[in-house]
């Protein structure tokens, strides 16, 4: 074994720490605001509801993020156990179970924050806003919270078409209208509940803030295509919630933090600085949700020269600039600013030449991960890690087909790692590391295959 003094495998971004501190403040700020009588909503990280709630001066708190925070500090165990006591099967979403456990504890303590809760805890909700976006577990979970709180539960509808339907004429417009109507109904609900009117300028302000954060994050991610990649997935995850964080009435702080991060990443690109302190042997993508309890596993991989350059979850979409000056309805403006059709995404990503072919393929084959596959190509990944979660079907059920297609189209292999977002007991780091070593053989093999076939990487 070599005796050189080893640096830490990861070269973390300075700007990340500042931004992460903002997230940690979130719970404290939420608690204080609650104490002053401002209503608190528990809500999903990604979703249509957040800017609207913020525009109505509601404090938003994210149980999803809170659960991962507990897991990262290895404090989720007792909450998970409590959820089991409450009768919830162990295969349900880890975020949900930790949250149910937390809620049960809160009720037991007469609404007080449990003393064992990290980061000051989540304040008791006045409102539970779930969404039908991303997965069904979310609204079933929030419905379950009705057992613990008398706060109203609202599920904000969102269409979930499969790829083929998305490309079917008429779908996009129908779904846009659906969203607009649904959000309008939601605002009526909020106005009635809070006894005040929505100030529409504020919505423009909060939603523009959101879009600006998204744009910056997208730009940062573009920089990660550089070789060596300047920013590691761990840094991306560390601030993921800050980036999506719309809880602050003033999003400018977050915009600012992201701008600083952009500058730092740009500096690294210009100076050839990598995100890992080892030669970048393998460029990787992480598919699925993060193993919050065992993030240091990625450091062990970094030590072997694995640089995680992109990830599938929480990836910001390409910002679109469309002229909405003629749209007078603020809700419609809000929806159209963000809701993009699959067709246009394909057109932008693939260009006029390739796009029709891709669309035709989706219609013919049914499912297609073409956009995600292209991501792997754009970032020149050598391999992807598929994180198959015992407790999340939304993120796990499509992974096998994705890896099949990835190998088929771009000759990039995948490594399946079984684990979980919250539950430590489901992950075996020693075994996983052994598999990772063997997988290097596989990546080396496909590097040659790609070369022989004339791929650029």
């Amino acid at each position, binding site marked *: 074994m070599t005796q050189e003094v080893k640096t830490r495998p990861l070269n973390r971004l300075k700007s990340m720490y500042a931004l992460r501190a903002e997230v940690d403040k979130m719970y404290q700020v939420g608690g204080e605001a609650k104490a002053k009588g401002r209503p608190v909503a528990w809500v999903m990280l990604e979703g249509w509801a957040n800017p609207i709630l913020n525009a109505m001066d509601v404090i938003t708190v994210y149980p999803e993020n809170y659960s991962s925070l507990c897991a990262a500090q290895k404090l989720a165990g007792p909450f998970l156990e409590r959820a*089991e006591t409450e009768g919830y099967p162990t295969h349900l979403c880890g975020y949900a179970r930790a949250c149910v456990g937390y809620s049960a504890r809160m009720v037991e303590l007469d609404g007080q924050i449990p003393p064992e809760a990290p980061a000051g805890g989540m304040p008791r909700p006045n409102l539970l806003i779930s969404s039908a976006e991303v997965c069904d577990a979310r609204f079933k979970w929030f419905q379950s919270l009705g057992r613990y709180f008398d706060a109203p539960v609202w599920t904000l509808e969102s269409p979930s078409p499969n790829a083929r339907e998305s490309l079917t004429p008429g779908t996009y417009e129908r779904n846009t209208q659906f969203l607009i109507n649904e959000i309008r109904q939601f605002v009526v609900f909020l106005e009635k509940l809070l006894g005040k009117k929505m100030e529409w300028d504020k919505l423009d302000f909060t939603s523009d803030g959101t879009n600006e954060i998204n744009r910056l994050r997208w730009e940062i991610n573009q920089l990660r295509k550089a070789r060596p990649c300047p920013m590691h997935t761990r840094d991306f995850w560390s601030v993921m919630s800050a980036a999506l964080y719309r809880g602050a009435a003033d999003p400018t702080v977050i915009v600012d933090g992201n701008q600083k991060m952009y500058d730092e990443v740009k500096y690294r690109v210009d100076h050839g600085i990598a995100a890992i302190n080892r030669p970048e042997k393998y460029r990787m993508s992480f598919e699925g949700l993060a193993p919050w309890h065992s993030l240091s596993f990625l450091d062990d991989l970094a030590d072997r020269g694995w640089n995680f350059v992109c990830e599938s979850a929480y990836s910001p979409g390409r910002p679109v600039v469309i002229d909405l000056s003629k749209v007078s309805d603020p809700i419609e403006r809000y929806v159209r600013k963000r809701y993009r059709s699959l067709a246009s995404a394909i057109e932008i990503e693939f260009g006029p030449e390739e796009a029709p072919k891709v669309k035709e393929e989706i219609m013919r084959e049914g499912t297609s991960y073409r956009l995600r596959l292209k991501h792997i190509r754009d970032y020149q990944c050598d391999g992807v890690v598929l994180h198959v979660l015992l407790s999340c079907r939304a993120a796990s059920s499509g992974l096998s087909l994705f890896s099949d297609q990835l190998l088929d189209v771009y000759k990039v292999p995948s490594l399946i790692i079984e684990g979980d977002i919250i539950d430590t007991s489901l992950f075996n780091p020693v075994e996983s590391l052994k598999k990772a070593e063997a997988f290097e053989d596989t990546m080396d093999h496909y590097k040659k295959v790609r070369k022989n076939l004339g791929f650029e990487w």
Partner: protein
Amino acid sequence: MIPIYFAGIDLGSTMTKVVIVDESEKLLAYVVQHTGAEHRRLANKVMEESLRQAVITIDEITYVIATGYGRINVPFADKQITELTCHARGVAHFFPNVRLAIDIGGQDAKGMKVKNGKLIDFVMSDKCAAGTGRYLEVVAHTLGLTLEDLGPISLKSTRKVSISSICTIFAQQEVSNHLSAGVLLEDVVAGLHDAIAGRVARMVRRLKIEPDVVFTGGVAKNIGVIKALEENLGCPVLVPSEPLLSGALGAALIARETILKAQAEGKSVQTTRRKLGEATFFKQDDGILSGN
């Protein structure tokens, strides 16, 4: 008045237990023997032995209830009742205030919620040997220890290791790894006890833990697991002096109650013509659903 007797037989995966009581709930005999390789054929032998102890004949027994894994294979039983109900009843006899009964046997682990001496809810472990008495048997064998050794050894432990393998077979290896790495035997054994107690605690937690918590089954003879269970549940755990007997005792007591109730109501109870014949076996094809 002619004295009447009742028997309970618990045909477990590892141990066969028989209890005979009389009308006043007095324990006249109890016998525990290995179910062994002879398995189901043994029921009648254990029964004979307990009759000898009680100094009565089979014809003097009014009612026999069979319970346990092999309950369907007791030809001389009048009725079969699950070990869940029988354990609950037996445990309540020892500890009238029991609210949660935990039984860890050779084949499975069970949690039973009890109210006023009656079973009201329960949980049972799955089809995996981890978290059962077998787990300890197998690993004790690897370590060259007897089951009786395990408890006392583990009490010496000051720094138990954590055993991460779920699988019994993997645990065997993990144990060897630890020993090779210089971990003390007592710390390894304590780790095993913690692993099994943790698994069972996790399972019974679904029933909400309320005192009195009573622990029975063969594994309750192991002081190390008792301690580990107390730690994992965060409350004291009571153990009857003969933890193996609760199922058979419960069966005998239920037999007694069945008859006394029927007599009080003036009803007759159908009983089997008793012959201490050998157990008959179920055909393989109905084995799938008639097994456990």
